[in-house]
């Protein structure tokens, strides 16, 4: 199992200091934007938002290799989109590569069209826009900030606690997973050398069974640790984190909304 590549990095950039809720709004607006119906002509809108996101990545001083990793993760999807739209885009009429002719309803499956490939590219940009916002949030917002933001959003304390503690236990789980895989390798059971089918049907049992047993055994100690620290007391908990909005947060908020409104006007206004 690969450890997460988009982890929080402690830096003092303006994006790191930005109020988590402002960043969260940026993430949500990105989702809204990518869900707008799409045409080839919408590419400028996507590029504006992608450019905006790139600026945020730059200001946040996120290393280039993280972006490369993102591209690597998406490469399969990009190839899929280019091919599938190349072959089946209903507005495609200029043949780029012709393998033959196989008509199926509206599409000629033997021909890759230029318009199809271009539309595939537009969709790739759409996916890139969609996937670039959340990593930015994750890499620039500490868990304590997320926790406070959840409090501000009136998410119940138990839910926040469960999320935060579960997130904290992921590191332990990565270690446990690695140790179990090693322990089984030592008995000539090597998951890494198995093919997809064998792995899916056979490999996970010797890894997941001890992992879950171990996890549930640890769960009792975790329950003890939290309950002996007053968790579940019928008392209103004290808010420790004080999250105040600074003028810069309002400025960023206005800027993000302005870019979003511009994109929306370009999309529906023109």
């Amino acid at each position, binding site marked *: 199992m690969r450890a997460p590549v988009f982890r929080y990095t402690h830096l003092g950039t303006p994006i790191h200091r930005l109020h988590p809720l402002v960043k969260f709004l940026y993430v949500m607006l990105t989702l809204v934007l990518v869900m707008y119906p799409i045409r080839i002509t919408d590419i400028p809108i996507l590029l504006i938002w992608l450019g905006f996101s790139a600026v945020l990545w730059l200001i946040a001083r996120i290393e280039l290799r993280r972006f490369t990793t993102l591209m690597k993760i998406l490469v399969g999807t990009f190839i899929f989109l280019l091919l599938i739209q190349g072959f089946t885009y209903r507005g495609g009429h200029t043949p780029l590569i012709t393998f033959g002719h196989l008509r199926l309803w509206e599409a000629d499956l033997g021909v890759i069209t230029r318009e199809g490939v271009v539309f595939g590219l537009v969709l790739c940009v759409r996916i890139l826009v969609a996937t670039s916002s959340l990593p930015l949030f994750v890499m620039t917002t500490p868990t304590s900030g997320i926790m406070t933001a959840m409090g501000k959003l009136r998410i119940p304390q138990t839910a926040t606690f469960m999320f935060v503690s579960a997130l904290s236990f992921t590191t332990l789980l990565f270690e446990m997973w690695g140790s179990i895989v090693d322990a089984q390798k030592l008995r000539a059971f090597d998951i890494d050398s198995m093919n997809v089918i064998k792995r899916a049907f056979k490999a996970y049992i010797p890894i997941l069974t001890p992992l879950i047993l171990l996890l549930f055994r640890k769960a*009792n100690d975790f329950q003890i640790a939290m309950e002996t*620290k*007053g968790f579940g007391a019928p008392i209103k908990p004290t808010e*420790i984190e004080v999250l105040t909005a600074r003028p810069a947060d309002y400025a960023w908020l206005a800027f993000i909304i302005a870019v979003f409104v511009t994109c929306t006007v370009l999309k529906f206004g023109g």
Partner: protein
Amino acid sequence: MDENKILSLQDVIFTYEGEVVALQNLSLTARRGEFVVVLGANGAGKSTLCYLLSGIAPHIYGGRRRGIVSVAGIDPWDEPLYVTSQVCGTLMQDPEVQLFMPTIRTELAFGPSNLGVPREEILRRSKAALSLVRMDGLEERNPRDLSGGQKQRAALASVLTMQPRVLVLDEPTSQLDPAGRWEVGEAIERLKRSGDLTIVMTTHETEEILHLADQVIVLERGETALMGTPAEVFSQTARLEQAGVKTPALILFQSRVFSGRTTGKNAGERKITLTVDEVAQRVESAVQAGELKVRQTIPASPIPHPAEGNSGTEKNGHTILLEARGISVQYPGPPAVTALKDVSMQVSQGEIVGIVGQNGSGKSTLVKCFVGLLRPSKGEVFFNGESIRKIPVGEMSRRVGLVLQNPDYQLFTASCLDEVRFGLRNVGVAEEEIQPRAEQALRRVGLSEVADLFPFRLSFGDRRKLAVAATLALEPQVLILDEPTTAQDHRGRYQLADLAKRFHDEQGGTVLMITHDVDLIAHYANRLIVLYNGQVLLDGPTAEVFTQVEKLRRSFVVPPVATQLAIKLAPLGVPPDIMTLDQLYAVLGS
């Protein structure tokens, strides 16, 4: 009623759901500021006592109780846990599950904020608690990024912010390395000296707490075997041994050499403050007074010698089985960590090698290279003269068997027998051979009786034995044990090492043991390698390495008490390369 009496148990009987009687007729009283140490073998009832005091029983582990329990004026049975937690704090063994917040700051604030303590007060308490465990300035660190000792100290600080009047510590150092144990021990000592807190601590490490204890209670199968001041309890070495409790080596030594005059102090005294220097001085006086004589020859060593080699690459007439040639390993970061730096060593057939060093010194990395789990970035590992670079780990497991510290990482089948069969099947052993080989492996480790039992239900010690059986069934030539004494009580601590010794004696096997336990090394290993910062600091015959006190100190390794005494007594003619008390007894005769 004594106003200072803060903790009281009277005739307590506790039975878990499922009718397991864990404590019987237990009575105990502790006053404000007292330090009570609870000793006993695994299963003696130590943790149950902690659970009863902190309310974990019955709120998390249900059961039946008779008798009276009072902790700072409340009965934890009748109060919800959040009420008990305000008078009684609990620290458990495993720091990993006790830390669950994103930063130390939020971790420390978690408890009091649940109780609605005002923010400023929480911050004040957090600051004080962090300072007490010497972790000032680490507020913003993620607990997951800390060392084992730091994690446990952070967990302790997070309990202290609840401002309990009683602190229950359930084997708080058992999962730590020597440096971590020292750090946590030091924090507990500061706590003890800082005031009114009553501390109840369970442990197997008698040496570490002796100087702090006001009261010692030894449990045996849920009942009180011994109780009293440290001097009173530790004077009864035979009874301690019977209860499966380790008598501190210095006390044991004195009781044997000075025929029962244990401490040289009054038995009624509350504390025992013994040091190697004091005992050495006592021996010196006894020798000068003619009460003791020194024989200047070391008695026959209990340590095995390498078997004779007969083929292949040889070193001093012995076949070299494992060899590391200039291996380096770097873990990718950020930040990148160099775990091994240009390490070279040879292990001959029939050797029993101890490997010691702090966590992070490279011990585990080294043995992972030996079994092929890790491929060094530089250098090469050879088995029987052949590079293992191209050999898959599964293939290597038939040559070098590694038993990891935690058996629960591998046990998953429905029975012990299946567990052993799993590996045999993976390496392609013929079906008709699998059953007898699996049965034989279980017999060898003494688990034939439980062959059909679900491994998860076995005791920790037996689960470790099962892991050894699963490894030995593959018939490796080299057996590597990672921390064979971890989480074992005094009685069970050498079970795995004994199995390895039998593998050595009966099958001519080669054994490597990674450990922090110097007594284990002294008893079993004929060679000792000390790793420090990814490099070999010392490598040689065990007795010789143990005399390098200064170099060992750099790696937080303290030689066995017998060696320390022998070095101090060297001017009297005691050979300094003594490793066990038996050897020392034989040298010092009356």
